[in-house]
């Protein structure tokens, strides 16, 4: 009875305090989250009172991760308490002028920002000591809370030590250039495409522009056929792209989706789904080309006039006529006609389907093909890009209304490639890395000899083996002592996100010192020595962010910095002082000033499309209120309006002046408007491409689209391909971008885990062959690692192919080597290909029974809370 009364009381207490979470008790923060995932201290009925109280204020809140979209998210703040979120309601919603509605992740932002597992204090690994301490304990050591002074002294000291030992080359700054280190002679950096796979160089050399031009979304609606190749906007271009596609379909286009998985996009839009094995699209396309050529379906006039290299009569200067694409397809010289049957044997698509698809694509005019990057995120991925563009050119859908051979993905999918409004510049002068004076993401100048940096994919070997590749200059020795990963924004969780996590852990346990800054204990920080808690974007002055070309988002501070969190630029300025570097050189501008500069330099297209004009009107009063340096200016909207709306979206209506058609000028007059290719034309035979790929020094690339079996592709699932004998790893695994996360970000948010379970997807036939059933925990093994996950059986999967969402937080048991989170890079290996792209979608695995305890749903798992 006693405990009954107690329970009764508890409940009435709970009722009052349930909403009452507040950060007031910590640091200087005065804000609170009213929510079940908050780790912040209960302070009675504060929040509930607040909720009941006054209207409160909606503030435009940052959603700042690499998520494939950009939307308007707002937080309702009442008396310093974050009550809830909402999305775009700044104007009536319509297909022509749609609101920018946030996705499930954006709507969970406050659960992340105010989660119980936010990093709160600077901390160091218990057993770390100068020189590394017990390095093998990285990833499982205890954490010790330390003061900011101690933390900064340690980091500054280690930087000095490393540079004394090996100069700038001894410190690996990972993906993200450090302005501090750049000011000190630079640091080792990594380059190589993640997102776009092998696309950039192919676009630049065959098409003459990177990124490719794409037509305005209104013109897409003129297409009679829309082919969505290896793209799943429903999941990986959250926001309006899939909604824009719906308008294309409603306007009368037939939709075909090419994908190994019957995706959410296919489910919603596809009139036809063409299954294909991962990494074999080139074969499928070449088989289609064969059918087109045999039935003379290609747009020969277009090929003759606008392209080089299709047939022997139209080869670029100096090229061997025997190297024409046509002859390769027909097998004129290699004696292998690339028939649909030949293709089917590789890509798995039914030969009749290949013929039918080829017919449809060649004869429906105008047609738009849009590819994402997934098929190019494969070993020798450029062969897909070459084949895709070549077949596209064969249809002649270039530079015409309702036509297009596009590559658009991420937040720009389905949109024009021309920005109609931009976020302006922060005004911070560039501070290049002396060791690598080029941009790192798509490093396009491998033939140069003044760079000293490595391919992303080669990082771990560089640390472990002490050497890496310098293009045609060959291998070079290196001795990496320290990994420095202070970030000022989202990105750079390489240990989780780059291929070969297990090798990565080995590498992380070899160096002398690792420092990261983070907002949560993500994988790269879990294996570090010192971790510095950064303010989330909700705790910073603000910034402008853009995604698709039609809107810019104004994101301002929602809450005071939580606990002892600090801005990344404050950290580097403090380190600079300790290292005798001028902080003003490292980070000259406070965030508020950078924010203001962005606003002041933001430009928007004029309604008649005759160029850009200033977006925001700024008055002396504004400048005074902001306490920043600047001058007044005339723009389209007032600062007040911009701030209140939280976004500016270019007004659009069918038939407005902003519609552009990609490559129309070239189509209209190819002589006057040459492309930036060697020949000025579209290069089906492209020597420049082979040359540049050769220059990287990893794999070779023929000048025309050919299919060559990728490492860990379909062929490698066999011990003996000809005889059809399967090998040790008989299944192909690709890894898609999953709505539960933005890569690794948000993976800790339990309401997203609940909504999107980290399942391992497989076709029932493959499961039956292994005696596996729906829901059971299975063991997935590859040459590179092991993972366990619950099994989901679905006919949506191509037989022989399996998949899982990328980005789960590595949760590896050192004893067994098993990752129970299902982080896909625990199963992928590091392989050097083409331009240093990461071939995630060519990966082979085996799946079998798991005899240990079955996994519980991970939204019930303990959160990664340090203090």
């Amino acid at each position: 009875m006693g405990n009954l009364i107690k329970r009764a009381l508890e409940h009435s207490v709970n009722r009052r305090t349930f909403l009452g979470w507040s950060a007031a008790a910590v640091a200087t923060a005065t804000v609170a989250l009213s929510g079940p995932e908050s780790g912040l201290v209960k302070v009675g009925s504060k929040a509930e009172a607040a909720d009941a109280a006054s209207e409160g204020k909606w503030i435009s809140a940052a959603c700042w991760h690499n998520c494939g979209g950009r939307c308007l998210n707002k937080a309702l703040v009442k008396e310093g308490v974050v009550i809830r979120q909402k999305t775009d309601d700044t104007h009536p919603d319509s297909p022509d002028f749609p609101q920018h509605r946030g996705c499930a992740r954006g709507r969970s932002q406050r659960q992340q920002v105010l989660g119980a597992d936010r990093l709160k204090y600077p901390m160091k690994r218990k057993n770390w000591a100068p020189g590394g301490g017990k390095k093998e304990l990285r990833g499982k050591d205890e954490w010790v809370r330390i003061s900011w002074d101690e933390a900064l002294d340690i980091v500054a000291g280690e930087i000095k030590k490393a540079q004394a030992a090996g100069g700038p080359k001894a410190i690996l700054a990972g993906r993200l250039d450090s302005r501090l280190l750049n000011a000190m002679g630079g640091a080792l950096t990594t380059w190589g495409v993640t997102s776009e796979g092998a696309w950039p160089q192919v676009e630049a050399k065959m098409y003459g522009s990177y990124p490719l031009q794409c037509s305005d979304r209104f013109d897409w609606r003129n297409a009679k056929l829309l082919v969505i190749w290896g793209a799943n906007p429903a999941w990986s271009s959250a926001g309006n792209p899939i909604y824009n596609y719906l308008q294309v379909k409603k306007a009368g286009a037939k939709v075909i989706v090419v994908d190994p998985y019957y995706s959410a996009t296919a489910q919603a839009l596809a009139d036809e789904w063409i299954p294909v094995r991962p990494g074999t699209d080139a074969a499928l396309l070449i088989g289609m080309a064969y059918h087109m050529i045999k039935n003379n379906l290609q747009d020969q006039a277009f090929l003759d006039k606008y392209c080089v290299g299709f047939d022997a009569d139209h080869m670029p200067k100096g090229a061997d006529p025997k190297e024409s694409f046509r002859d390769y397809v027909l097998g004129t010289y290699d004696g292998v006609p690339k028939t649909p049957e030949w293709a089917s044997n590789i890509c798995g698509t039914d030969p009749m389907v290949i013929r039918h698809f080829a017919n449809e694509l060649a004869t429906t005019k105008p047609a738009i093909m849009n590819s994402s990057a997934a098929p190019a995120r494969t070993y020798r991925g450029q062969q897909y890009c070459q084949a895709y563009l070549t077949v596209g050119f064969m249809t002649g859908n270039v530079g015409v209304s309702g036509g297009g051979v596009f590559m658009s993905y991420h937040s720009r999918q389905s949109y024009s490639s021309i920005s109609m409004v931009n976020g302006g510049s922060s005004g911070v002068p560039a501070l290049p890395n002396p060791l690598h004076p080029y941009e790192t993401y798509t490093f396009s100048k491998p033939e140069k000899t003044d760079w000293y940096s490595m391919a992303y994919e080669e990082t771990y070997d560089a640390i472990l083996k002490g050497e890496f590749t310098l293009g045609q200059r060959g291998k070079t020795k290196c001795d990496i002592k320290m990994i420095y990963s202070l970030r000022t924004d989202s990105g750079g969780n390489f240990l989780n996100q780059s291929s070969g996590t297990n090798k990565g852990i080995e590498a992380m346990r070899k160096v002398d010192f690792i420092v990261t800054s983070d907002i949560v204990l993500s994988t790269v920080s879990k294996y570090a020595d010192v971790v510095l808690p950064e303010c989330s974007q909700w705790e910073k002055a603000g910034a402008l962010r853009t995604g698709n070309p039609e809107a810019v988002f104004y994101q301002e501070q929602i809450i005071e910095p939580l606990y002892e969190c600090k801005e990344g630029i404050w950290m580097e300025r403090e380190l600079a002082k300790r290292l005798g570097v001028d902080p003003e050189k490292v980070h000259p501008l406070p965030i508020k000033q950078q924010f203001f500069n962005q606003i002041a330099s933001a430009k928007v297209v004029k309604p008649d499309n005759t160029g850009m004009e200033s977006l925001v009107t700024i008055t002396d009063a504004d400048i005074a209120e902001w306490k920043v340096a600047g001058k007044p200016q005339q723009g389209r909207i007032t600062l007040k309006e911009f701030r209140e709306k939280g976004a500016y979206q270019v007004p659009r209506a069918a038939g407005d002046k902003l519609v552009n058609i990609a490559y129309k000028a070239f189509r209209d007059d190819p002589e006057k408007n040459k492309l930036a290719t060697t020949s000025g034309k579209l290069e089906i035979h492209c020597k420049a491409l082979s040359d540049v790929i050769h220059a990287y020094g990893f794999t070779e690339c023929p000048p025309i689209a050919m299919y060559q079996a990728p490492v860990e592709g379909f062929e490698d699932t066999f011990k003996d391909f000809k005889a059809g004998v399967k090998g040790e790893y008989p299944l192909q695994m690709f890894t898609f971008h999953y709505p539960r996360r933005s890569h690794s970000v948000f993976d800790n948010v339990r309401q997203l885990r609940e909504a999107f379970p980290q399942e391992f997807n497989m076709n029932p036939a493959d499961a039956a062959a292994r005696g596996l059933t729906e829901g059971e925990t299975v063991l997935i093994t590859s040459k590179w690692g092991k993972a366990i996950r619950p099994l989901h059986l679905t006919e949506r999967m191509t037989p022989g192919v399996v998949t899982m969402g990328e980005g789960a937080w590595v949760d590896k048991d050192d004893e067994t080597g098993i990752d129970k989170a299902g982080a896909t890079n625990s199963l992928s290996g590091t392989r050097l290909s083409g331009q240093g792209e990461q071939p995630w979608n060519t990966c082979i695995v085996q799946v079998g029974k798991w005899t240990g305890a079955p996994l519980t749903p991970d939204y019930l798992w303990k959160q990664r809370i340090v203090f």
Partner: protein
Amino acid sequence: METKEWALILFTVISQAAVGAFLLITWFRTVNKDAAMDAAYKKANLVLLPLAAIALITTLFHLGHPERALNALRNLSTSWLSREIFFAGGFFVMLLVSVLTEKTVAVRKIVDWLTVLAGICAVVSMAAVYDLSMKPAWQGFHTYVAFVVTALFLGAALAAGLVVLFGKDHAQVAPNLQVLIWVAAAAVVAELIAFPFYLASLQMGGKAAQATLAMLAGQYGTALIARWALALVGGLVPLMFVRRQLSAGKTATGLVYTALLFVLAGELVGRYLFYMTGVKIMIG
């Protein structure tokens, strides 16, 4: 499966047993005018009273807000749960009145039968509560049968226990026991007949019903076997022995108590199964 079902298991089983036992004892009390026995019946009721009270109290443990329990009486017009609480409460109150009005026999007799009436209404509304849920496992005739069977089977066993406990004169106790054993036997047999029909109805039902069936056959299979073993081997068999003993003119007090314990256990396990295998019809 929601948590804290144990409270409901205890509430339904205990209150049903109390109702059954009181009904039977009231019946004896009206037919048997012997003074010594009447004292025994009276003592028995003094035991049933706290039982009824305990049953009511256990329901509180099922509530998120026990302190608001009385709100449960607000919707007698449409809610069988309100009615269940009303009649279960009524049964207890009347029982109390009956105990207090021991002296004034005429009044007590009426009160007793009104108490029985309240008890029966309580058992029926309990069944109705589950019948009106959206869990096929709980819908239909079987819940009524199951609850009435508990009332009579466990009620008879309980009454038997009380009669042998308080009844001094063996010659007087024996005939009561004979009746009680027959009632118990009849009750079990009724359930034995009803149960296959229940399974059949699940068999013919939709996905949720099928799921219940699968659970009974699968993860709860052993519990199901235990339930019947306890009822038949542990409960019925000893009672039959008691009958033999009695007809042989011997006493069998110990056996009666054992049977009571086993029958109780059997009904508890049975009710546990009832709650555990209730599956909602909405997917997910």
